[in-house]
């Protein structure tokens, strides 16, 4: 049981409050991804877990023990840094062996551990090289290896893939994930890339501005974003958020906005919406908009007439930016016909995948 639990962690640098009472728990053997925009305090949080920063308030509990005052060297966590931080004067072997030498392990033991990790990461060919003779991807593996050798209870990653190119990043993503299944220990992974978060995490902790916006599985965050921030952050391309009103006409509920009118009757708990203040923000993900042209079931009540502004072709799908009245909508549509800017387009809204948020608090309206 090597969970990590952070309780009411706060931290400021000078007058800048970076973390404002963070409560989060990574369960034992969990792959937890901390994600959020740049500068929101993710790295700081990670460094607090590692012991590289001292929190101003709150507790760091690792494996059931309060570790606030424990030196990083004694916390039994391993960390992979964004810039790898390999020791430039040591060979790859020495880099991997370093932590073990510090612990005065026997030569054979060190050798065994290093070879084990090196093989696992396929860097056994590189053991005699110095870091500067390695490519970015190789360095990344060595950095991982250095953590692996430790066999720590907790792995910490701080944007380990951000210096790699897209293809390599994807490969490494898989590999880290694979490692996790093999080693089966707790991993806390910091990134600002939502794709990484979605693909790798058991659970995601989404941070913004020093607070936690939402914690949950990738599906939860995608399907039930706690607020507009989460909804925009998770999902690519980002969700369309539309300010509007909910009105009742002839007993049916409608969402009205400039150039748009959507019948909400098919939504299950729609009564809840009616009771509220009628000003809401409606969210619809681009993937939940469909081209009327290809639609098998037409839904004229929920079809929006748009004019196309711009088309980004992504191969299997095309991201179509369009507008209706003053409302901007982007939709990702399966390419079947060529769409040109200026064309008019009928988009069908998938009413059951709509999200609603309070206009003032931006909180999700639970239906």
């Amino acid at each position, binding site marked *: 049981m090597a969970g990590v639990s952070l309780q009411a962690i706060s931290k400021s640098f000078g007058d800048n409050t970076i973390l404002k009472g963070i409560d989060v728990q990574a369960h034992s053997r969990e792959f937890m991804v901390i994600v959020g925009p740049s500068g929101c305090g993710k790295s700081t949080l990670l460094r607090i877990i590692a012991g590289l920063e001292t929190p101003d308030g709150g507790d760091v509990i690792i494996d059931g023990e309060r570790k606030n005052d424990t030196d990083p060297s004694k916390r039994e966590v391993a960390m992979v840094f964004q810039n790898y931080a390999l020791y430039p004067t040591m060979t790859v072997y020495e880099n991997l062996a*370093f932590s073990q030498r510090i612990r005065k392990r026997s030569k054979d033991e060190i050798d065994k551990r290093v070879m084990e990790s090196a093989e696992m990461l396929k860097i056994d060919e590189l053991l005699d090289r110095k870091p500067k003779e390695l490519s970015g991807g190789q360095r990344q593996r060595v950095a991982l290896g250095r953590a692996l050798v430790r066999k720590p209870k907790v792995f910490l990653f701080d944007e380990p893939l951000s210096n790699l190119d897209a293809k390599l990043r994807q490969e490494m993503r898989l590999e880290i994930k694979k490692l996790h299944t093999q080693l089966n220990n707790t991993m806390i992974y910091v990134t600002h890339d939502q794709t990484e978060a979605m693909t790798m995490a058991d659970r995601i902790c989404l941070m913004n501005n020093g607070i936690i916006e939402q914690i949950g599985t990738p599906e939860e965050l995608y399907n039930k974003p706690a607020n507009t921030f989460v909804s925009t952050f998770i999902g690519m391309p980002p969700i369309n958020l539309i300010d509007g009103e909910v009105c009742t006409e002839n007993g049916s509920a409608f969402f009205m906005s400039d150039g748009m009118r959507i019948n909400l009757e098919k939504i299950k708990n729609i009564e809840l919406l009616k009771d509220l203040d009628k000003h809401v923000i409606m969210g619809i993900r681009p993937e939940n908009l469909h081209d009327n042209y290809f639609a098998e079931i037409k839904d004229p009540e929920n079809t929006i007439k748009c004019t196309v502004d711009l088309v980004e072709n992504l191969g299997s799908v095309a991201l179509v930016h369009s507008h209706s009245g003053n409302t901007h909508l982007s939709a990702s549509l399966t390419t079947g016909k060529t769409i040109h800017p200026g064309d008019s387009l009928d988009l069908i809204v998938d009413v059951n995948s709509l999200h609603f948020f309070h206009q003032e608090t931006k909180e999700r309206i639970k239906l």
Partner: protein
Amino acid sequence: MSKKIETLFIFSFLVLFTLATLYPALNIIGISLRTDDAFQSRSLALWTSESSFRSYVTLFLKTDFLTWMKNSFLVSFVVTLTGVVLASTSGYALSRFNFMGRRAVLSSLLMTQMFPATMLLLPFFILLAKLKLINSYLGLIIIYSSTALPFCIWQMKGYYDTIPDALEEAARIDGCSRFSAFTKVILPVSAPALVITALFSFMASWSEYVVAAIVLQDPGLYTLPLGLKSFQASLSTQWGLYAAGAVVVSIPVMILFISLSRFLVSGLTVGSVKG
């Protein structure tokens, strides 16, 4: 102008310039090979028919030159060692920690360079006399190591600033204490700067005369510059001996400089800005 001609042009310019630069150094060698009296001669030649190694022979056989040399090596070695140890630790503290008084320390290090050194002599002397360190190497070593320190600390701090913090953080997570992260990871990386610091400390003590003259009174303790100076009486200098001595004194420093010139370029970071 084609590339080749340009290179040739620059090359020949550099050759000429280098020769001109080296001339004064060669000049001393020339004098050291002459007799005392031929020191004022109109010949530009470095080697003349009268030249001989007599001064060198005298220097090594008839004077205490070897003792002075041994003394100088001893003093310089200790000074270099202390200088490197102190500069590397305090430079590290200044580079990595944001403690109260850090800025003040840094500025005052720079400020120490601004005060005319000659006026420090009298207080030095008083201090050493009070501590009963006159005529001892300890006094000399304390002064030498400390006077070279401000620059060396700056220099070390400048170099540490170029090393990412993540390096020792990685080391600490790997199980190092603060201090062992410093000694095991940061110091090896800082080798070029350490070499430079060592070189400067060495230079500061190897050829220093003025302080040595007030601290050391016993001829048995003389360092090279003091010994050299004793060839140079106010109204009669043994120029041949002096020049030969000067050449021999310069040789170790030259060798150090030449063999370390590679590090000089990479390690001299008087002012690299943290980045």
